[in-house]
């Protein structure tokens, strides 16, 4: 009987070998694949297994980490003024993943980043508890508060930049949401999240980065820059040879101004002061679609911007001449995010140099050592220093005597531009009120800001960039100036 016994022994050996091979297959070859399954809770469990690092503004954390009573997750994310900071931090939920900075810098915040390998190894020997690193932002707490308070019950968004560096100083969106309300994994968290998703006001939409609005008259700054850069006029005080009304090309429809304002043959400076549609519509038409796109691109249009949180691409479209003329005054298919319009103001304020906007200043190890620091980077030069200074004069004129007087700050030079963007079928819906501006001191410009307010007031005539948006911009600028 020994021959079959030996064969059976081989057979049993084969069974064990098959198990060993299969084990190697799933635990070694397929391990990464299995770890990446969306069903696998381990990534999320690990994210909250240790005290999560913080997102820091002006040296103070705006987030926290609290011990959670869930058996799945040891810690839970908390926020201070969550609604105010949500457009910056994003959320980190036990049930619903994470987004924005909480997601992008997750490996630093959890402490699992490869760049923290040394710290982890060290703390293994010192027996220190594992803890996440910090994300230090460029934001200015006072400016953010001014922006958020300014928007209050209105729908809208604010983006403020430091023109010299591109640091994002404020990034507010309203209505907002408190990420704490669904950070856990209880039934309440689930309900809160569903309510937020279904809210027709879209509180979880980051309007400052992810919503594009028709920029309206604020875009005339870009059109004016295009005119100057392309040498359409020699000076900002030269008459523009423009009729009122301006007949749109290939169309019988005339382009008119809002109200009776002195726009016929107005100079660039006067045209911007009164926000003449006829003048800027004609400039856009004279330059043509290609040149307008070229200038808009230099200001950052038509591509996504990573701050590192992604901002939607603003759009200056390829279009037929009548639409191109309308796009030149910020209508038609022209779309811009509030961040984009803040970039326009900052490029002008920084003498024509556009800096890349960013909101993460540095990443810190758990022991507060800096792991990486973001250096300011020039993105492009939309206009020459001389042209930029001319455009500054025009924008400062707008605030001094034009439509933007509400943004005046005593003792500080302020340049700005209002906008009232029509939208909806036949402009039936309440327009968007825009204001872009910058403040200037002796040492250059410390802040440029863009504010948009969606159909805030019941009375259509009251909605204007000057009335609704300018005071918010002013408050943000003042907050930055005072904190310097």
């Amino acid at each position: 009987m020994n021959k079959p016994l030996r064969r059976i022994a081989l057979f049993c050996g084969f069974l064990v070998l098959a198990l060993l091979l299969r084990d190697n297959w799933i635990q070694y070859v397929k391990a990464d694949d299995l770890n990446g399954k969306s069903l696998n809770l381990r990534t999320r469990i690990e994210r909250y297994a240790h005290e999560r690092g913080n997102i820091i503004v002006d040296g103070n954390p705006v987030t926290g980490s609290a011990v959670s009573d869930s058996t799945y997750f040891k810690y839970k994310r908390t926020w201070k003024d969550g609604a105010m900071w949500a457009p910056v931090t994003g959320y980190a939920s036990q049930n619903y993943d994470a987004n924005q900075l909480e997601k992008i810098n997750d490996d630093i915040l959890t402490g699992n980043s490869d760049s923290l390998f040394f710290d982890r190894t060290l703390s293994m020997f010192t027996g220190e508890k594992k803890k996440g690193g910090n994300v230090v932002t460029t934001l200015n707490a006072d400016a953010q508060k001014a922006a958020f308070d300014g928007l209050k019950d209105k729908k809208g968004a604010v983006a403020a930049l430091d023109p010299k560096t591109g640091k994002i100083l404020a990034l507010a969106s309203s209505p907002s949401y408190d990420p704490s309300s669904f950070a856990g994994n209880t039934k309440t968290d689930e309900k809160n999240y569903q309510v937020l998703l279904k809210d027709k006001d879209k509180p979880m939409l980051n309007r400052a980065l992810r919503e594009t609005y028709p920029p309206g008259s604020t875009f005339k700054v870009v059109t004016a820059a295009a005119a100057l850069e392309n040498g359409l006029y020699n000076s900002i005080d030269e008459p523009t040879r423009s009729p009122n009304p301006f007949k749109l090309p290939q169309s019988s429809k005339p382009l008119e101004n809002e109200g009776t304002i002195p726009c016929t043959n107005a100079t660039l400076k006067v045209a911007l002061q009164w926000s003449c549609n006829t003048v800027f519509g004609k400039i856009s038409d004279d330059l043509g679609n290609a040149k307008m796109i070229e200038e808009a691109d230099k200001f950052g249009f038509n591509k996504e911007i990573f701050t590192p949180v992604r901002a939607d691409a603003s759009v200056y479209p390829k279009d037929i001449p009548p639409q191109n003329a309308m796009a030149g005054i910020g209508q038609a298919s022209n779309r811009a995010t509030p961040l984009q319009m803040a970039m326009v103001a900052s490029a002008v304020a920084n003498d024509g140099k556009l800096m890349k906007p960013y909101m993460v200043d540095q990443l810190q190890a758990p022991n507060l050592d800096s792991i990486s620091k973001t250096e300011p980077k020039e993105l492009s030069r939309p206009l020459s220093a001389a042209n930029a200074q001319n455009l500054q004069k025009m924008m400062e004129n707008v605030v001094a005597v034009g439509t933007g007087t509400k943004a005046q700050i005593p003792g500080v030079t302020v340049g700005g531009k209002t906008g009232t963007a029509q939208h909806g079928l036949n402009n039936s819906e309440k327009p968007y009120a825009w204001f872009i501006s910058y403040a200037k001191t002796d040492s250059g410009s410390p802040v440029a800001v863009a504010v948009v307010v969606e159909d805030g007031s019941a009375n259509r005539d009251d909605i204007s960039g000057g009335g609704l948006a300018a005071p918010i911009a002013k408050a943000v600028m003042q907050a930055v100036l005072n904190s310097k």
Partner: protein
Amino acid sequence: MSVVTNTTTIGAIEAPSRRNTELMLLVFAVAIAVFAYANVGLAINGTLPAGMLGYGVGLTLLAGVGHLVVRKFAPYADPLLLPLATLLNGIGLALIWRLDQSPRLKERDNFAAVASKQLMWTAVGVALFVAVLMLLKDHRILQRYTYISMVVSLVLLILPVFFPPVYGARIWVTIPGVGSLQPGEFAKIIIAIFFSGYLMVKRDALALASRRVMGLYLPRGRDLGPILVIWALSILILVFETDLGTSLLFFGLFVVMLYVATERTSWIVFGLLMSAVGAVSVASFEPHVQQRVQAWLDPFSKTTLAQTEQIAQSLMAFGSGGTLGTGLGQGNSDLIGFAANSDFILATVGEELGLAGMMAILLMYGLIVERGVRTALAARDPFGKLLAIGLSSALAIQVFVVAGGVMGLIPLTGMTMPFIAQGGSSVVANWALIAILIRISDTARRPAPAPAPSPDAEMTQVVRP
């Protein structure tokens, strides 16, 4: 300890009993298990577990008693079987205790801490082990009970049909207020005894009285009868008890023993054909089996996940373990939820001890089987050979079916991992299995009695002048 004296050229050899080797190995086995227990406590609570002394003393006592009984009643037994069983059982207890500590499992309905109960069942198992060694002086006695064994195993197999199914499978005998029993675990041993007794008597008839058709030896109809009965029985188990594992185990066991008894390859072909026909036809109308197959083919598909996440969770647990594992008490294998400490306990091994630990465990089972096969080879009587190979291949098939199921190699079946998994019937039955193997190996390795001295030997020697 008799000294073998022969007049042949082989000199006098002291036949080694290997009991001291066994003792050393047992010390290691108990030490590793206690260390695992301490490791769990340190990882979860940061302190040595309070029950550590009791656990350590308990395990040492059980191993010690086992060893002393083997030393006294089976002095020539294989030295590896007892330490391997002790180590697996000890690690199993540590793993079960570890899962008892899981807050996620504590949240589940029907949660009960079972480690101390399992320790008690282990004690019962070792008691049975001792009883078998003390009472069963010679394994050949079992041969007398061939047909009684058949009846008992049939009763044990059919019994669960009359009890309500537990989680979709009728493999339990539940007596309210008393407890529940998995008779299949005991039937595995008893049916091996029946097969051995039956085949020992019939092997010649089965092997020789056959017709040759197309190169294969086909058995006569009357010899075929009992085989068809077993085949039908395993199909019936599959249909009425929806117990894929047990039916696979019995049929596999029978084919293996038939092959060993008759030395006819045709029986394997015949057996495989019959099991294939049975499995396919049952799978074609039994939704429970179909679900299992579907879950095996694509554990992450939407339809599978709607029915069960278990295999997917088990695979992810293995995956997250990687090469070295997370360390005991530091993994998330409790995400498997239901049956995490019984059918799926290997997933905890995979996640917390990693590929290395998992391979070590699988090789330990492999080693038990190897010692069993070696015992079969060394056994001098056909009954002992058949019983030893039957028991060890039953263990091998069971390990393959369970481990293959949780690792997604074959469809999942409702069986438990011998010694490691939680479950009283399983641990008690497997200790009895080891006891029988030890008894056979003792007989097999016992030195042959010295030949009776021949009175003529001296006289016939050539005396040189």
